[in-house]
């Protein structure tokens, strides 16, 4: 599929989520997003017009003015752009079955959902939130918290937090990226690790009584999926929410997602001649593609 799901998401008028093509029948979004971003723009509430996304105190309490920049007034731009760059990397990775979207209120909080397509957790649809420390990229590794504590050895049964730190003992800028955290969150559902568990019960069961473990997992998946249409936990316009398939709303949105072609945002330069190339691939010579050069 050429269509990048992340971009198509953003291309969508409403802000959200669709499942993979095989899973899309049941659910989709319902809430209208604030008319904030132009069509096809990137999702990170982009520019700190007043540096609001960063500095505005939000409920998460993770936000504080950036201590990052040497040039104070550009500081917000650096943090915003670093996160935007991380988000761009996520898009480039095209992680299977994972969708994320930064929150409207803070670039440091990303909403996500993961679809598990096979294995023990097959058919699981788990919503989660990523919290990025405000001294990113120099701080701890991001936190990833499932909305509903899914039954898993590495997921805290009370808070729903995934044990990310075991994979990123020290968060190293330039080497560690948020997409890796997302990738890790996916991996745990396919390859179960029971050492030093946050949920000892799950770990023990997996070791001792796989059948019971499996049935508990099935129950957990059912539970999660039964809350799929709940209001998002976080009151944020960009929070991911699902709704039953409503052709009146979703058909058109789907259609647009599939037909959308990203183009540069240039209002007045439509048909200019540009992007020419007559270089034969591999030749590194100008006009090498040419068949009939003028004889001079």
């Amino acid at each position, binding site marked *: 599929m050429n269509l990048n799901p992340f971009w198509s998401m953003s291309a969508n008028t409403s802000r959200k989520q669709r499942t993979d093509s095989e899973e899309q029948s049941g659910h989709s979004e319902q809430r209208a997003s604030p008319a904030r971003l132009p069509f096809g723009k990137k999702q990170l509430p982009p520019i700190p017009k007043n540096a609001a996304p960063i500095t505005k105190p939000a409920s998460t309490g993770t936000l504080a003015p950036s201590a990052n920049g040497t040039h104070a007034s550009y500081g917000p731009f650096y943090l915003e752009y670093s996160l935007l760059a991380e988000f761009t990397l996520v*898009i480039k990775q095209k992680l299977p079955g994972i969708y994320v979207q930064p929150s409207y209120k803070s670039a440091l909080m990303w909403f996500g959902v993961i679809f598990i397509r096979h294995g023990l957790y097959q058919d699981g649809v788990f919503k989660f939130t990523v919290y990025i420390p405000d001294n990113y990229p120099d701080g701890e590794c991001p936190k990833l918290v499932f909305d509903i504590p899914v039954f898993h050895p590495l997921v805290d049964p009370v808070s729903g937090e995934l044990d990310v730190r075991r994979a990123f003992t020290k968060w190293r800028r330039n080497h560690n990226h948020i997409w890796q955290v997302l990738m890790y969150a996916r991996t745990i559902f396919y390859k179960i690790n029971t050492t030093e568990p946050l949920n000892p019960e799950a770990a023990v069961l997996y070791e001792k009584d796989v059948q019971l473990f499996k049935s508990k997992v099935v129950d957990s998946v059912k539970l999660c999926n039964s809350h799929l249409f709940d209001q998002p936990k976080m009151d944020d316009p960009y929070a991911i929410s699902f709704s039953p398939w409503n052709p009146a709303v979703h058909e058109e949105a789907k259609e647009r997602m599939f037909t959308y072609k990203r183009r540069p945002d240039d209002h007045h330069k439509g048909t200019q001649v540009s992007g020419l190339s007559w270089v034969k691939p591999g030749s590194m010579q100008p006009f090498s593609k040419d068949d009939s050069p003028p004889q001079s």
Partner: protein
Amino acid sequence: MERDKNPHWLSRLNPRGPGSRTGRSAAPSGPCTADPETCLMVFENHWRQVSWVLEQQEPSSSSDDLTAVRNHTDQMLCLLAEERPAESAEGGAAPMGPILELVVTENILERLVQWHLRRGLDSDSQGALLKLFEMLIGQSQQQPLLQHTAVLHPLLRLLGACADPDLGCPLALENSLVLLLNQICVSMARQPVVLEMLFRAAPAQQGSTNLLIFSLLVPFIHRDGAIGQQARDALLLVMAASASNEAVARYIAENSYFCPVLATGLSALYSSLPRKIEVRGDDWHALRREDWMSVSSLVLFMNSLEFCNAVVQIAHPLVRSQLLDYLHNGFLVPVMGPALHKSSVDEMIASTAYLDLFLRSVSETSLLKTFLRFILLHRHDNDTILDTLLTRISSNSRLCMVSLSLFRTLLSLNCEDVMLQLVLRYLLPCTHVMLSQRQAIRVTDLYGKSADKFLSLIPECCRLNAASSAERDEDGAFWGKGGHPSIESPAPPRPSTPSRLAFFIRQQSSGGGPGGGGPSTPTSTEPPQSGASHPPCPDSPMHQQLANTECLDWDSGYLEYLKDSRQGIEICSWACRDWSAPYDGENPSPNVAAPPPPPPTSNPTMAMFPEHFSLQQGGSGSTPPPGQQRLLEQAPGEPQLPGDSNGQGISIEAFTQELRELEDRVRERGRAACQQEETARECLSSERRQPQQEEEQQPPSVPEPKPPTGDTKGDGPALVFGSPARPLNKPASQPYTGPFMVVLFAKLENMLQNSLYVNILLTGIVAQLACYPQPLLRSFLLNTNMVFQPSVKSLIQVLGSVKNRIEAFAASHEDFPAMLKKAQQYLVARGKVDWADSPAAVPNLRRSDSLVKSRKPSLGELILRHTNSPTRARHAAQLALAHVRDGGQSLHSALFKGGAGAGSLEKQAEALRVKNAVYCAVVFCEFLKELAALAQEHAVTLPFPHSQEAEE
């Protein structure tokens, strides 16, 4: 005829309606509206009388007969033209009307024409017949007359007479002839079968040339005025009709002179263009539409070029490729090539500006390709045109600006071939980076480190905050003196030269849309699709800032830069999505990359005397180095310059010629009192001035890589091939980033001495380059952490040295902060004036927060708004320019009190030098912000898929 117009010619060729010709054609006065039977009877009646004359044995020479025949013929043809055939009953072929039927069965027209020919066709009758046929074809909308040989053949016979070498077509009848031909072509465009018939019928009728219409039209291709336009329109119709007809196309290509006439005609027209462009403001650097509309020879040329473009657009591939060949070999190589190598500076300026204009005007890809191939590959005296153009960047102010403008146009094409030759092939081997750094080529600036680095180069002395209110009051007084812009006044006094910044930065969008005339509303000042005259980031907010305060905060406007950088990068990535390779340091592989040409070992114009050229330019204020002094004293033309004579002849010639001219002017002007900047500037070179502090600190920069330092060897493939024309006496592995980068960096390093306008163009080009997403280029320009080979200068190094110079300058001028503030205010004010002029042009939001946009409604548009009358336009232009000049003067005196009025050359020169330096400081800071924003935006840009992939 700009690219954006994308003229589909055919749409414009609106066949003239019947109404448009009343009173001109043979008086049609018959009872045209009568019922068909009556018409037929009247027609038969006329015919009887005519045939009586025609059937006489001896062709009558009596003028009575002639008059009678003419009168009757007029009536008959009018009836024929007006005849409406009955509706066909069962949808079969429409039956001929009774009159047409009679014309066909009796072969009336043939007999008429034969009769005229027999009795000897005088020009009077010839003209009458031409008009008659033109009327007939033009007005008979009801029946496809030309499809009947009884009409077609006599017509061809008449035309044959016009082509007859003995008879020919008298001058007075040319208009009628072309009009008739035009009508035939219009009619043919409607009924393609006619083309076939013309083509088939022709040999029998006319012998040698079987597309008579065509050969009759060709001589009029380059004609001035309406007749030329009609001929070109008609030819285009033939082209369009023949686009799918191989036989006709082959005929045009093989048996007609169409293509050679077209191409060589361009050459002839080019040779009549002005050799010297009369330049107005000191910021002039490119031909805009309003510049050339009043130059008739240029208009003529542009019409023909536009025609070529249109032919290429619609003609059969056979014709197209032949035309392109002829254009290359019959115009570009023999005419453009030498013109670009002319020895006088004026001619260089003119030819460069022309080439730039042509490039911006051509919209057809294959025609553009022909031009680019010429520029990139054609060698004139061993150097490619590109080589020659590159050396001009380092030359004096005006030539430099015109050349920069041309390169801006080239860059705006986002053409892989151009970028390969200019930059990428030098970076491909990756010898410019340390081996260990090659991985870093693809790394993007994820955490804003590079951006931070760029911003950190903003000199401390430029980090001023907004002016205090008291200072602002004082500024009010200043404005009062300089003439505060007021909206009501018919010609608001415009403040000063920097107010032309807008005019200057703006691209030559050449406001004329398809309709020609200038934009009538301010909103249309940016044409909806303003073609390739727009490089990817011409709209980037260059070097100007917030208009909220009277002053620029050093850190203001960054958001605008981010926004524009994003757009610039996206447009550029989009445009480059179909390139053959990503140029990321791996593909193409550095190891297979052919070694690029080595640096020129001796290039007098570039390497030896870079400072000479800056002498002339906007107040560099340098004292000529000793070597130059010697040259100044030498007789021009003496082959004194070292360097290989092979291939450098032209440049030396140009150089010495320039010196000669310089000398002359210097002598001439040196005596006169130098009241004006310009004079002052030129006097600089004649005066012996005390070498200035800075010049001592900073010897003439040699825009060549430093000699190899030894430890760079072995890191990269040994140079095996090389242009045989160049001696290979340099170590083979010396990294070389190519003449373009070298000359740009050299010029950049010299920013403090450049004029404001040079700096704006220059930084604009570097920013344009920095929009390119190819990691090789991006890392070279924007990755400040990259470690290059010692001999390779990085952008950040160059900028660092500019920063030091600015700081040194500021330290030596205690009033620097005040001057800087004034210069900033000036640029801001300029933007405000422009907004004030066109309140409707932009949403308020923008207006208040960004003077960045000030360039849009610019002087050029103000002029264009008056273009209903050319004289008014000129007048307006003169007025506007006068204000700019006055403003410049008052800025000058206001900024630098005491320096100017004194009449002392020394002081004026010094003032100019100071002025350039202060403006440089402003531009420099903005440039750094722009680069920082570009670095940040690159990290968040997603690549576009190849267009073929995207279509799947």
